[in-house]
């Protein structure tokens, strides 16, 4: 069990850190508890990575949203409360990400970091492909707007 945890730690840390941000450590702990408790239900060892990814994304969104699991209105996904970023001095990725909803951060992680297709990301998140497209568009727009001077 511990060897599996050590093997998965870097990947799960990236997913949980990027989606749950300051609560990434909690999300990581919840992810591993869910993984280890349910490992016996995994029929196909080759599916381990995708299964862990699904759990890590779900737990990160849940923890980032304070334990609430009710769906959010896509129209409210872009927060206007993020502080302006001084990209001339430091590109604070965490601050930029904090201006996005957890669901948007999940889409960015799955598409731009993990390289999943929109279809795969939609399947993992349990939403329609069109929802992934619109969330991704909003997330990328918000990210690029704040990233670039």
């Amino acid at each position: 069990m511990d060897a599996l945890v050590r093997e998965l730690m870097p990947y799960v840390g990236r997913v949980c850190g990027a989606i749950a941000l300051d609560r990434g450590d909690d999300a990581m702990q919840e992810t591993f508890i869910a993984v280890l408790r349910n490992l016996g239900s995994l029929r196909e060892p080759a599916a381990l990575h995708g299964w862990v990814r699904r759990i890590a994304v779900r737990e990160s969104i849940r923890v980032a949203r304070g334990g609430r699991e009710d769906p959010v209105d896509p129209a409210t996904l872009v927060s206007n409360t993020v502080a302006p970023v001084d990209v001339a001095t430091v590109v604070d990725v965490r601050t930029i990400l904090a201006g996005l909803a957890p669901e948007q951060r999940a889409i960015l992680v799955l598409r731009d970091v993990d390289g999943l297709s929109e279809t795969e990301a939609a399947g993992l998140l349990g939403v329609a492909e069109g929802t992934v497209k619109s969330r991704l568009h909003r997330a990328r727009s918000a990210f690029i707007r704040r990233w670039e001077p």
Partner: protein
Amino acid sequence: MSDLGRRWPVAEFGPIARARALGASLPSAAWTEGILDAPYDTAWPWIADLEVSVPRFDTQVRKVRVLERAPVVGAQRLRITASTFGIAFPFDVRLEDGFCLMQARARLYLVLMAAEPHDGGTRTRFFHLEAVPLPGTRLLRGYLQRVVDADFRNLARLAARGF
């Protein structure tokens, strides 16, 4: 991974979170967690010296002998025996900074200890778990809970006295 991906925040998984997650997967696991009134830099090296520490705070263990010690990436692997009730039980141990996993060779018993600096390192958060990692052992949990609670009280007393 893109340059953007490399710059994203990464969550940390400290020794105690790792120990908690492992414990949550074991039905019979009993654990306790608390603060030792000793600096981490003092407490962990003492705890990690298993031949000295375990017989002092674990009333069930008379003697620990380290038979073999080998470095691996980020850790040491130890082969030890822990003598209980006059019998020397062999254990495989993975020892890291703040993390110690001891598994009986026959996989009949598991001991986990984890520690992290607390209050800026002036005190130590300590986690201790014991389990019988076999199916149908949930009923042992009450007994194991008394064991780990007693071990923690002993360790806390030793820490307060400077070991």
